[in-house]
């Protein structure tokens, strides 16, 4: 898997290659939680970051790779002065578009069991996008601001 140049980081990123399977979700959750704690996030924030990253990993496993075995995700932690950035790089299919919101009542009436993952990522993190940095490469990018940081007004 080819790497992507990290952006705007003060320290070298921590990278972990993980099999793209649901069995590895708990490993990704725990690795993320510990990385967030090590970066000074409080336990509640670390838990939220871990859940958000688990949602991105689930999306890669179930949608990008459609549950097919034999694929990998490169998990990259990029601590910056104002935020912790986490990337999940994959070589599966990119999402057609990201939902902008959810109507829980409608989903429930339709007996739907999915469609909440991107919404949850966005509610728990300050910045969530899916990028395609190179041909055939997809990357979920999630950022959580450090406590007290206020992004400049645009």
């Amino acid at each position: 898997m080819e790497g992507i140049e990290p952006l705007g980081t003060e320290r070298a990123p921590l990278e972990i290659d993980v099999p793209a399977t649901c069995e590895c979700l708990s490993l990704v959750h725990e690795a993320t939680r510990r990385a967030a704690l090590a970066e000074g996030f409080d336990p509640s924030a670390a838990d939220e970051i871990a859940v958000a990253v688990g949602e991105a990993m689930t999306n890669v496993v179930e949608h990008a790779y459609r549950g097919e075995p034999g694929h990998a995700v490169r998990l990259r932690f990029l601590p910056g002065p104002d935020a912790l950035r986490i990337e999940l790089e994959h070589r599966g299919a990119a999402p057609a578009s990201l939902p902008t919101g959810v109507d829980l009542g409608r989903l429930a009436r339709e007996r739907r069991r999915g469609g909440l993952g991107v919404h949850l990522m966005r509610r728990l993190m300050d910045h969530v996008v899916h990028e395609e940095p190179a041909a055939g490469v997809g990357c979920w990018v999630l950022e959580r601001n450090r406590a007290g940081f206020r992004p400049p007004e645009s």
Partner: protein
Amino acid sequence: MPDLQVATRRAAEVVVVEPTGFINAHTVAEFEGVLNALVEAGDVRIVISGAHLSYVASAGFGAIMGLIEEARAGGGDIRVAALTGTVAHIFRVLGFDRLCRTFETEEEAILSFGGH
């Protein structure tokens, strides 16, 4: 210890579902299987006790979302009790407090079914 264990017990006409561990896309089948079996059997007055959950990902909330209208159509409901910490926070930020009735304690949730 397994990642998720799901116990059930009866309190009058209510079934309390008590998952212990975490619910994500890997473990959700266990949780969903218990809920499915209850609803299919007509046990539609369900309280999910979250006291022993460390975290719940969207898959777990999706399992509730996919069955709650089925339970209501059968004259029951799926209600949630004793959520704590990150699980309670995620429940709120997802907006599930508008979809699903929640209670501080399991006892309150059971009693809420008193008049159905």
